[in-house]
Each structure stands twice: as C-alpha cells, then as structure tokens.
C-alpha cells in the first residue's frame, strides 16, 4: 500500500533514491571486489596501466603464501585464540550479565556506566601494563596471554549484550525452578542457558570477529609462536623493501575476510546491536 502511495507522490525522487542507493552500495563494495579480484591475478596482471579487469585467473598467490608454513601457522593461531577468548568471555560475561539482569545489587546502574566507559579505555593504556606483566612471568608469545588480553575487552561487550537478552526472558521460568529446589546457578545452567542459545551463539560469533581482527595486542604480546593473521597482514602491507607484495596482501586478506563476512551476514542484527549497544537503548 505505502509503496504505491510513495510512487504516486514522488515518482522521480523515488527512482533517484533507488538508483543512487545501488550505486553507493557498489562503491562501498568495490575495494573488497578489487581485493578478491587482485588475489586471483598473476604478478604480471597486477602491475598494469590501465588496471586489468579481465585476465586469466590463477590460484598462484594462494598456493604460494599458504604453502609458507608461517601463514598457515598464524591462521591456526588466529582460530585458536579467537575461539578460546570468545568462549572464555561468553562463560564469564554471560554469568555476569545474568547477575546484572536478575540479582538486585546495589550500584547495578553505576556498573552499567562503568561498562560503557570501559569501551573508552584506549587499548594502548592496557597494552603497556599487560605486556610488562606478561614479560615478567615469561608469558609473552603464548596463546594464553592473548586469550586473556582479548577477554578483557570482550567481557564488557558480552555482559551488556547478554544482560539485554536475559532481561527479555520471563522471570517465572527460573522462579519455578528455584521453588523446585534448584540453586541459582543450577537454574542458570539448566533453564536459562538452553533458552539463550541463539543469543549466546550470536554473541560468540560477535566476540570471535572482534578478536579475529585485533591488531595492537597481537603486535605487542606475540613475536613468533603465537602471532595472528592481522600481524602478518600488517607486515605484508608495511613491507616496501622488496616492493609491494599485492598478491600476498590480497590472498591473505581475502582468506581472512571471507569467513568473517559469511558469519556476519548470519548475525546481522546482533552485530549492529553489539557495536551500538550501551548508548542506543
């Protein structure tokens, strides 16, 4: 109904909006398109004037850089670290979020403000002390260090997201369990967690994306064994001594970005809420 009304009232304006929204979205997609395209080019097709749109595609860049054990190792590190830190923050963050949603605590509101402010803490202010502590205990370049470091910034997000989710669940459910003699924790595990699976899984993916992409802590806390893909990409992008290595940059970049994009499209709504939450209520 409304579609018809709009078209009748502003025929030209409507089409201008539709066409320009398509053009703008294509413009925003272009860098990704160009990255993927370049990753399938041979070296001779990358450095050309004018830039080539049609060429014989090849997996050369992928084969060359994914045969190098260090890239595969870093990819494995990234998977391990991102999933473990997401898991850790889900366990701690969802319990804390549940506490904030259900248990009446003094100063629970103040805590909300603290969580919001914690997002304003510049990561560099945490990176220096965490590095020094890790170094003191011989924990640099270890997976566990990065996992804990990521959990520090993921937990506030998880808490806040899951608090919102738990608030939307009816209280009667656990109250019934509590009356039947279940402990608070038992009620949480047996009743709340199964009901919250969609929220927990989305928050898990959201947390994984954030640690998957993190650069600063990875740069500071690792140097060889536990290094992640973002560090490798920063290295490739910054390496100008041997000439720009766009084949490597785009192949590794594509392999890093594609899984994230697929997951992100699944959790669209949650992702936006996760990044915007705290201020937009």
């Amino acid at each position, binding site marked *: 109904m409304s579609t018809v009304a709009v078209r009748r009232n502003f025929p030209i304006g409507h089409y201008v909006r539709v066409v320009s929204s398509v053009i703008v979205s294509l413009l925003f997609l272009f860098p990704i398109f160009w990255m993927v395209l370049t990753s399938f080019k041979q070296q001779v097709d990358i450095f050309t004037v004018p830039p080539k749109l049609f060429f014989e595609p090849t997996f050369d860049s992928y084969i060359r850089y994914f045969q190098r054990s260090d890239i595969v190792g870093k990819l494995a590190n990234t998977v391990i670290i991102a999933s473990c830190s997401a898991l850790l923050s889900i366990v701690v963050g969802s319990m804390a979020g549940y506490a904030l949603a259900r248990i009446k605590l003094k100063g629970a509101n103040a805590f909300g403000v603290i969580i919001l402010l914690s997002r304003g803490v510049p990561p560099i202010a945490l990176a220096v002390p965490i590095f020094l502590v890790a170094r003191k205990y011989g924990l640099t370049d270890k997976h566990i260090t990065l996992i804990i470091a990521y959990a520090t910034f993921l937990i506030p997000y998880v808490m806040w997201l899951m608090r919102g989710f738990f608030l939307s669940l009816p209280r009667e459910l656990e109250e019934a369990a509590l009356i039947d003699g279940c402990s608070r924790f038992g009620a949480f595990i047996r009743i709340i967690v199964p009901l919250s699976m969609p929220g927990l899984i989305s928050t898990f993916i959201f947390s994984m994306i954030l640690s998957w992409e993190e650069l600063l802590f990875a740069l500071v806390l690792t140097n060889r064994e536990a290094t992640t893909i973002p560090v490798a990409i920063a290295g490739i992008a910054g390496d100008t001594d041997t000439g720009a290595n766009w084949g490597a940059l785009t192949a590794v970049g594509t392999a890093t970005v594609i899984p994230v*994009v697929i997951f992100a499209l699944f959790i669209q709504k949650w992702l936006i809420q996760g990044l915007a939450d705290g201020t937009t209520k």
Partner: protein
Amino acid sequence: MVPAIVLMTIVLAYPLLYAAQISFSKFDLMTFGPGKWVAFDNYWKVMRDYRFWESMRVTLVYLAYSLPIQIVLGFGIAYLINAPWWGRSMVRATFIIPMVVAPVVAGGVWKMILDPLWGIANYFLGFFGLGPFNWFADPNLAMASIVIIDIWRWTPFVVLIATASLLSLPKDVFEAAKVDGANWWQTLFMVAIPLLVPVLAATFIVRWLGAVKMFDIVLASTVGGPGTSTVVVNLYIYEEAFRGLHFAESSAMAMIVLVLTMIVTAVLLAVSRKLEDIN
C-alpha cells in the same frame, strides 16, 4: 555470578592501576618494572614533548573530519536505502561487509588502491581530469587517505543504525508538515533532524569511542608518514613504548589520553541527555 563481576573488574582495573603506577615511577630497565616513585616527572616530560602534542593535533584533525562526515554520509545513505523497492534488504545487507573487514586489511587494500603508480583510484580520477595524486607523499593527502579509509570502514555502521531509526520516525508528523506546505529542506531541518537528535547523539558517541582508538588503519597504510603527518596519538604511544622502550613516559601519555577520553565521553553523554530532554 557475583564472582564473575568481581573478576571482570579486577581484570579491567588491574592493568590500568599498574599503568598508573608505571606512569608515576622511573622505569627500571633492569627489572623491567616500575622503579623509584617520581610523582609527576613523567607527566611534565610528556607535556614538554612537542611530538606528543603533534600527535594529539593529528588525532584531532582526523576526528574532526572523519566523525562528522561519517554521520552525515551515513544518515544520507540510509535515506536513499530506505526507498521501498524489492532489492532494499539486499542493498542494506551489502553495508555489513565493509564493517567486518579487519581494519588492518582495509588499510592494506586501500594502500594498494591509492598507490600513486599502479593504484586504481588515480586511474579512475584520471577520467575526470583529476590527479594523478601522490596520496602518501603529501601530508594533507596522507591525512585525507586515512580519513577516506576510515569513512569507508565505518560509514556502513552508521548507515545500518540510521536505516532502522529513520524507519521508526513517526509518519504523521511528516504528513502534517506536507499539509502545511513545508518543502523538502524545511522538512529536513525543522522536522526530521530535531526528531533524530537522540539517535544522532548516540551514534556520534559510539563512533567517538571507536575512533579515538584509531591505530590499525594508520599502521597498515601510511605508518604515520610522510614525516609525522599521520602519527595519531595511539601510534605515537605505541612507538615510544615498544620501539623507544620509554614505558614510563608512554604510560603517562596513555593516562592523559584515558582521562581526556573519559572527560569528553562524559560531556558528550551529558549533552546527549540534555538534547533528549529538550525534545
């Protein structure tokens, strides 16, 4: 449950307190920890460091361009997207993609696109008789590159928030404005923007909290150059700490940035509350 909250507070508070301690101490490179208490010495040193102020200026310039452009562009694009047609949800979904590209990948790929010799950006601009621009060699253009990359990465986020909030605007007010004979611009400034103030303010705050952390994109594209023209404050602190090993001074700088960020955030929150009350 309560232990989880306590644990979280410790995990977050402990590093900050440790950083504060380091910032008030002379750094002992032998034990690699805070040494003698020197009160505000590190802070005075940092205050006299012109490179620190330069990095603050660079950060301010970046924020001053990047944030307003992202907000205006984001809401503008959201208005275009919200035109009802069959492909709308698909167009909207494409904006998810730049948002989840790792910033370091965004920086690297844009470095390739903006390359003065082989980059496709200069090739396209050539059709319009512009350029060729040597993007990373000129201080102003290098800053422009950073702002462009940041806009590309983050405008989609604003777009996605804005599409939802624009759709939730009350329709009857707009119809009333039309009945009263308001033109498109009058409707925009007298009706739409006042109604959107709370969302605009909230979006601005979320973006502000993200933008003050600017680091990855700069590191992957300009690495602060040419000269120090794109050394944002986080990059400067990083280099002072991990290349210069000036941990005490860099902790002091991090503390200054932390306190300033908190103050500005508190002011922004207060202003946004006021603006909501006026409505």
